[in-house]
């Protein structure tokens, strides 16, 4: 527990950037879902770290992190279900094929 706060934040930033890049650039829908998990985990890391170091009530951030984990699980389930549904109609999980909402 001697690592300074900045290290955690930099790591979290890297994680977030990686997630954003994945979301924007991955061609595979599964990959995009995984990248979203990366973003959520970067947030979780931040919540936990801040609750340990600067918060006067450390429980709050940690409990919040659990909520995010639950949300991520639910989101992944829904996301996967959507991907499955689209796969059935398009026979593909490529993101550029997912333009059903086009004008």
């Amino acid at each position, binding site marked *: 527990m001697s690592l300074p706060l900045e290290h955690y934040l930099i790591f979290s930033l890297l994680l977030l950037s990686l997630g954003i890049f994945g979301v924007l650039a991955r061609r595979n829908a599964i990959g995009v879902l995984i990248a979203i998990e990366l973003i959520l985990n970067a947030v979780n890391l931040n919540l936990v770290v801040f609750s340990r170091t600067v918060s006067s009530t450390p429980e709050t951030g940690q409990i919040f992190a659990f909520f995010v984990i639950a949300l991520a699980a639910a989101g992944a389930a829904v996301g996967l279900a959507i991907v499955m549904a689209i796969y059935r109609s398009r026979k593909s999980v490529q*993101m550029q094929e997912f333009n059903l909402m086009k004008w």
Partner: protein
Amino acid sequence: MADLAYWIPVGPFLAFGINILFGKQVKHKAALISIAASVLSCLLAWPLMYRVASEGHALTGDFVWLTLGNHPLHFGYLIDPLAATLLLVVTLVGTLIQIYAAGYMHDEARFSRFFAFVSLFMAAMLTLVIANHYLLFFMSWEVMGLCSYLLIGFYTEKDSAANASKKAFMTTRIGDVGFFLGLLTLHVAIGTLNFNELHEAVHLNAGHALLPMAALLIFCGTIGKSAQFPLHVWLPDAMEGPTPVSALIHAATMVAAGVYLVARSFVLLEVFPQVMPVIAVTGTITAFMAAFIALTATDIKKVLAYSTISQLGYMVAAMGLGSMMAGMFHLTTHAFFKALLFLGAGSVIHGTGTQDIREMGGLFGKMKSTAITFLIASLAIAGVPPLAGFWSKDEILLAAHDSGNPYIYFILSLTAFMTAFYMFRLFILTFLGKPRNPHIHAHESPALMTGPLWVLAAGSVLIGLPGSPWMHHWFQNFLAGGHHASEHVVNLRVMGMSVGIGLAGILLAVVIYARGLGMAERLARALRPFHTASINKLWFDEFYDIVFIRPFKAVARLLFRFDQQVVDGLVNGAGRGTGGLSRLHQLFDQYVIDGLVNFTGYFTQWWSAVIRRAQTGLVQNYLLIVFSGVILLLYFGMH
């Protein structure tokens, strides 16, 4: 009892209503209805007249007809000796003429309309006679004018009749406008138009500056209605109407209404020494001028028309000379013998089919009743005693003599001479001698027509007697309301003169015309300037044509052209301008306003076509934009 007076004009008015509305249904019963109404008026009127005569005071009654501001108009009746006299004349002569007309108009297609108009006229005339108020008087005066117009133009298919009716209406209108202005002036001056209050009000306001003007303007009504110089030109033309109308309206009653107006306004007129001579001179000029024109007239009705004008001039002159009774007396007698003359002329026209006396002649044997009654009337108008005309004309000449103006006396005497002459010229040419036109087969008129002739002939003989010295000038005293106990002196010199003049006129006519037209033609050549003047009716019509009608028409044409070119031009210009402007407006609307609207539409369409390309449907594109936005917000948030 007295209030029965209100019902006097009602009968004829109802007859008018029935005949005009149900003319098709009543057909020839129209005459019966009108005559019955007239007889009813007679029966209502005579007891009232008897009461006036026996009780010696006027019967009055009124009600508030209308309140103008806080000035109530009391309309009602005033039956004084004056009104009673005229009431007798109008109901009696009117009834007789209508009986005659039933025969005369028998073959006329518009029979019921004729009697409708005559009944309306009777209603108006009776209202006028018993009116107690100048305004009521004026209203019925105007209705009579309307009836006159309708009846002169009764033969609507004749252009000359239509023109004559227009001429009569417009000429009398000039006088009527004066009359109405006179009434307004009078009201301003004395504050009342009621005959009952007239005497008192005039004497209270005798100094009022407007009063003489009011008197003169009211006299204008007489000039128009009674065909006095210079507005006499309508009456000869009015002879275009059916002959019974000429007898009733244009000889016996309506034209006498003007004289009656003077008699009614006498208390007003006699106050002003500057007004009376105007009246006297107007009457004298009229009497002489019309007699002069009558000398050469060849249409039987025109002779009688000019004679009527002349006799009306006599009446007006008598009034102007201050002898209201003489004027009214002559009015009464004249109504009988002039109606008789006209009806006789109608009978002649009926029998011969012509109005030109040069074509007649020798009718005495074929039309005995007509000829004898015509002779009686001619003697009456010529002033042969003891017939009616003698007594009344003598009264007028006496008044002229006593007025101290020798010129008026001389001119009126000369007129009396001419009257006797032209009447006997007419009689001789019509009834005596040999028939001049072999194509005319005259026949006597039916009894329906000759009956009234005989009654009127009896009237022409007898009606003068109440005013004669034999009955102690009962009529004159009656008119005066019994105030002036008989101060009438019989001036035998004047009387003798008047008889002599009349007989001389008759004699001259006999001498000249006894052997046909030959001598008359030689005489006409000898007196060419006079003959030309007379036969051209003193060029009155031509004079009016040049002085009034042509300038009027020229101005009218000018105004018409102004109307057509300037006013119409303005209107049309405004129309065309509006059209042009609206076309411009339409273009503006079409291109600018519609353009804006359409542009909004097109622009929206085009821009949305552009902008919808942003909606790719690819989630990653949207996310890219979201993240770019977050980064931008962070960037701006930091600064």
